[in-house]
């Protein structure tokens, strides 16, 4: 990894963490959703810096859609989506602090404990990466993806059923 790559990686990593903090520091639900989006976009940019082109582009694309849809649900279901009433976004602070702290220690332990062996092998070209991903999706991971797809389809049908207002019975 070159110096420029390392610098970009640090920059986007810092951006991801910063936007993650903004999610909880704002009172506005929409700002919170968009901050989460940009945090995830920064993670996508980190993939791009690490030459995982397909994954990076996919992450950047998918998050824009998902977070926007999440934003509209927040606006629909929260009483103060614009944060005009200075609603506090945090709750159960003591528990959250402990959970966050333990999570951080666990992550650091994994980073330090993992056996990082030598330099990584050269990254294959972007086209080979996409081909390898295709083989993975249609090979050993196929069952997982098919199962997930079926579950999402079931949830979509169920959500539609819940959303449809029952028709008035004729007397």
């Amino acid at each position, binding site marked *: 990894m070159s110096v420029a790559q390392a610098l970009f990686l640090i920059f986007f990593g810092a951006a991801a963490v910063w936007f993650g903090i903004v999610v909880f520091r704002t009172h506005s639900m929409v700002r919170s959703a968009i901050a989460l989006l940009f945090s995830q976009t920064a993670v996508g940019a980190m993939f791009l810096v690490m030459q995982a082109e397909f994954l990076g*582009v996919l992450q950047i694309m998918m998050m824009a859609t998902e977070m926007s849809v999440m934003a509209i649900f927040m606006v629909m279901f929260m009483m103060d989506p614009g944060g005009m009433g200075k609603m506090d976004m945090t709750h159960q602070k003591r528990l959250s602090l402990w959970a966050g702290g333990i999570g951080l220690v666990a992550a650091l332990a994994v980073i330090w404990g993992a056996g990082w062996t030598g330099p990584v092998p050269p990254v294959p070209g972007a086209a080979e990466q996409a081909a390898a991903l295709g083989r993975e999706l249609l090979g050993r991971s196929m069952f997982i993806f098919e199962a997930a797809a079926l579950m999402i389809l079931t949830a979509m049908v169920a959500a539609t059923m819940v959303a449809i207002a029952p028709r008035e019975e004729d007397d």
Partner: protein
Amino acid sequence: MTLAIILFALALGCYLIAVLEDWAVHGRLDPLRPAVSALALLGREQVLPRKSDRLFFEVGPVLLLVAGLLAVAVIPLAPGLIVTDLATGALFLNAALAYVLVALIMAGWGPNGAYAMIGGWRFLGQFVAYAMLIVMTITAVAMRAESLSTTEIVTSQAALWNVFYQPIGFVLFVIAAMGLAWLPPIDLPTGGGDLAGGVEAEYTGARLAVLRLARLVIVLALASATATFYLGGWLGPWLPAWAWTAAKTLAVAAAMLFLGRHLPRLREARYLAVSWKLGIPLALANIILVGVIALVVPI
């Protein structure tokens, strides 16, 4: 040097599309009109709405412009005349244009006005309609080219343009692209007679100029993407390569700007219903058809 040429082509293309839009709306071809309008916008007073989400209000139009510019970066003007020839170019175009949605939601939410906000959320409804169609038609194009790189997609059409190879995909892509660029008849996010300008309602002066410029860049990106994916990009006899890309892009842009104006406005719920009930089955059929043709008679 390449970047300078492409930036010049981009600026010229946007200007010509503005002239074409003026022609589509008012029926007269006035080459000076966009310049005069731009100067008038820049000279006008900039009104700031009260109690606005200032950050979103300012960032929205700029993000829209950035999304359009990033999308243009993967479109080849001629062999070698491209900002970056990514191996995942066609997907990257889609990823960049996904931020049009984010930008319009921010621009709609920012000014704290009812019309603007409804316009922004309407675009989300529209997005759910066109998003699948764009991705699924690009899938079929990439299947034939066996690559997501935009230059390889162009060269794969040497024997036969994709518009003849996969006409269903072409029609679906154009309809979806018109939804993405909120062109009439699917222009409810900024509907003039309906929402007092929708997302544009609270923008004035230079900010409105940026918003309109970003929209022109997006129309240009989508017209050039249509030319690249379906009309053989730079391929063509006699003329130099860049001239073919330019001619095809402007022809597609003119068609997209002109045709829709003669249809009644499409409500986003109706657009959604048509896209999902008719568009997605057709897009799936297109993918299967292209797959079969590619396997049986490789052209």
